[in-house]
């Protein structure tokens, strides 16, 4: 086995082009488990942790570009105000030790249906920037997840960054698990309000072969909100609206029975998560609406 330590992204891409079978390692919180348990014996590891470009974040046009190698702890500490949904999901990952090492790039590379950042990336219309010696392309999160632990990367590509708009309105993420730390989601849900587009992003995790957007729930809510003029003059949502949103969100899933929970439980829990997270996000929106108009007055 080889251990390759590129110091620039260009160097890493050159290696990946020449030896597409090498396994990139960032925080190692997925890769090392596979190595320790002999589930994987790659011909080489490609250490990405020396590549400064990957561990930086910066504004890029009107979006934020978050390098693939920025660990969760920094997303929480440095971007919690601008990317609240991603920060919430990051806070639920593993333990402090895992959050100190684990990265969004690694979450995307592993593409587990249970990965916590995925529903947020979907709900926030994130774009995944991937690169190879052939060039760079942007993949919308909704097109990135292809199957259980399969993503849209070509063999010579690496993930460079994710691009997300700084939140203009409340976002929420919530997950169900057996304890408050160190749990793989039984199911998870993210919602992001996009008032400037008159719509809501919503996505489910750990309840289908891939993380998925809950399109019917998104459309239903967009309709309800604009019909009632609620974006402009926010009022509390009717229970019936929140409940219907929850039902539609649960219908987006195609869950299975497994050790963590049954399909029926996941559907039920998703409906509850969707209803509650929407309630929290909307309540926040009403709150900021009031402060806004008060401070205008």
């Amino acid at each position, binding site marked *: 086995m080889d251990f390759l330590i590129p110091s620039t992204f260009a160097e890493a891409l050159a290696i990946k082009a020449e030896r597409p079978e090498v396994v990139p390692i960032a925080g190692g919180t997925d890769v090392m*488990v596979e190595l320790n348990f002999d589930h994987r014996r790659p011909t080489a*590891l490609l250490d990405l942790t020396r590549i400064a470009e990957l561990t930086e974040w910066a504004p890029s046009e009107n979006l934020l570009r978050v390098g693939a190698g920025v660990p969760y702890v920094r997303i929480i500490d440095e971007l919690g105000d601008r990317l609240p949904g991603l920060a919430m999901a990051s806070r639920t990952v593993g*333990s402090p030790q895992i959050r100190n090492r684990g990265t969004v790039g690694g979450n995307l590379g592993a593409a587990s249906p249970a990965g916590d950042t995925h529903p947020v990336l979907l709900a926030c219309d994130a774009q995944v920037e991937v690169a190879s010696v052939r060039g760079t392309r942007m993949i919308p999160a909704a097109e990135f997840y292809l199957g259980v632990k399969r993503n849209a990367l070509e063999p010579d590509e690496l993930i460079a960054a994710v691009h997300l708009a700084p939140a203009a309105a409340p976002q929420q993420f919530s997950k169900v698990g057996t304890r408050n730390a160190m749990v793989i989601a039984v199911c998870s849900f993210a919602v992001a309000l996009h008032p400037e587009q008159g719509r809501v992003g919503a996505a489910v995790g750990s309840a289908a072969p891939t993380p998925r957007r809950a399109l019917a729930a998104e459309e239903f809510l967009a309709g309800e909100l604009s019909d009632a003029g609620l974006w402009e003059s926010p009022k509390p949502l009717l229970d019936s609206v929140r409940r219907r949103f929850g039902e539609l969100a649960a219908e987006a899933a195609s869950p299975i029975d497994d050790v963590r929970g049954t399909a029926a439980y996941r559907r039920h829990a998703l409906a509850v998560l969707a209803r509650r997270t929407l309630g929290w996000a909307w309540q926040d929106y009403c709150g900021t609406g009031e402060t806004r108009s008060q401070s205008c007055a």
Partner: protein
Amino acid sequence: MRVNVTINGDQRQADDVWEGESLLYMLRERLGLPGSKNACEQGECGSCTVYLDDVPVCACLVAAGQCQGREVRTVEGLAAGDDLDPVQRSFVEAGAVQCGFCTPGLVVAAHDLLRRVPEPSDPEIREALAGNLCRCTGYEKILDAVRLAATRQASGAEAR
């Protein structure tokens, strides 16, 4: 491969390191530092917690090669000879140690917490130690130990 790494302030060199080997294995089996414990090798128990460039990590989830040229501080590096760190003393005095297997990892995690948050609330302590499992104590004495260490530090005894 060969790995050069600073451990507890000393420049060390490990030879014949397998490329897929963890930092934990290198510490315990090649560098004679068995303080960090191996209990799960999958990041779940925290017994292997060490500082890597001043950040607490599970040594079982770091590839040894990723430590080339970096600084590692293990539980062995907290005490100055027989002079224990206040966190270590507090663990002993509070009865937070039974079989002791989880102790090195918990001591490093608690040490880090108290550097960042000198007077942590109970929820902050629980959150900071959420990645460390103990099969013996039931955690109450561990919480006592962290509170004791915090009081000690506040009253002037300095954590190294």
